[in-house]
């Protein structure tokens, strides 16, 4: 082995589970330091698990999903279809996409970037790791990574939005609302759509400041 290349199995990667337990990331890009564009794998350990979350990539990312192992039921726009091992799924920016594992131990590779723009590491990767640290009880490590990620992604809505989720889970409502306000100012329509459906923020909804922010 040398510094110029690396050999590994997707099974060697960490398995990082989202706070609500619905998603498991195998952080390929971050682990090897691949820089040209985004590439990660997602695991559906049991049939019925989400393997790709329901989302749209409204910020302009074009994506290709590759079913590396197992079988998934994909939804792309209005279409739902069976995707056995070896299936390629292309999603243009803004198109609804989602995948549910149809077999146990399903692995889907996700590749993504914005056409015509140099790729930069997205904040969500580091936030996903930070939330996994928190779930494992490594709160200080998680908080340090949240702060570092916020500093490296100034001006985005994703940074303060994820920081708001983190603070809400930690029980610091003042800090959570401060971050949520910043995120809302940067992307009001998206935050107004995402926040009410986000399990991390449920507890905040009874706070008067929630009504003040979202009406």
């Amino acid at each position, binding site marked *: 082995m040398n510094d110029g290349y690396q050999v590994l199995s*997707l099974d060697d990667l960490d398995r990082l589970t989202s706070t609500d337990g619905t998603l498991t990331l195998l952080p390929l890009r971050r682990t090897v330091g691949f820089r040209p564009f985004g590439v990660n794998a997602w695991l559906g350990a049991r049939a019925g698990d989400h393997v790709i979350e329901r989302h749209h990539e409204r910020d302009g990312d074009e994506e*290709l999903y590759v079913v590396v192992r197992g079988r998934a039921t994909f939804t792309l726009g209005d279409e739902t279809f069976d995707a056995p091992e070896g*299936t*390629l799924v292309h999603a243009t920016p803004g198109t609804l996409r989602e995948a549910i594992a149809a077999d146990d131990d399903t692995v889907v590779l996700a590749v993504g970037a914005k056409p015509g723009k*140099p790729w930069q590491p997205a904040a969500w990767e580091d936030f996903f790791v930070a939330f996994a640290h928190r779930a494992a009880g490594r709160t200080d490590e998680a908080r340090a990574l949240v702060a570092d990620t916020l500093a490296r992604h100034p001006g985005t809505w994703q940074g303060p939005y994820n920081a708001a989720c983190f603070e809400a889970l930690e029980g610091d409502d003042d800090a959570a609302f401060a971050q949520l306000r910043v995120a809302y100012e940067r992307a009001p329509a998206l935050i107004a759509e995402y926040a009410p459906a986000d399990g991390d923020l449920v507890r905040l909804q009874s706070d008067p400041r929630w009504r003040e922010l979202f009406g």
Partner: protein
Amino acid sequence: MTHLHIDELDRIQLDDGFEWRPIRRRFDIRAFGVNAYAPGASGRVVEEHSESELGHQEIYLVLRGRARFTVDGNDHELGPGELVFVRHPLLRRGAVALSDDTVVLALGGKPGAAHEPSAWEAMFAAVPAARAGRWDEAIRIHEEALAEQPGSAPLLYNLACMESRGRRPLDAILHLQQAVARDAKWAEYAARDTDFEPIRAEPGFPA
């Protein structure tokens, strides 16, 4: 088409003995480089090469079968779900299949740069037409690629090859001259390239 199986991709047998299954062109992906490869007559599944010209980082992921990768002189046998990430563009890399059903997914791009389709994709895509002597089709594939990457010397050179074989000597001379104007190495290549036999004696042939 928004989804298909790797076995439904086009299968283009290349002279180097491996099979190219174009993914990026099939879906018209603009944001990143992605293709699949399978073994051809030689058993090779990834051509031996470096990325010194393009400066790409690459990931090769075995989707099916087994392959022996050789990277920087070191051998590694990989099965499904295993991958090699080649960080350094100058390292030579290649792979031979260890089973007939092997398929390898290749991802590549240049760090810090917006993705541009590689010129070789048009050249590979034109292989079936060129092999069948359908020169107008081979020329059209290169012209379409050039429209997206005006001034690409590799594309100009290969367009000139197709035009020479397709009996369009004036176009071939013009495009070969344009390639040479961008890099003199293309004149050296043209001097020994049999594609240019039909026009080698023409005025203005740059070699």
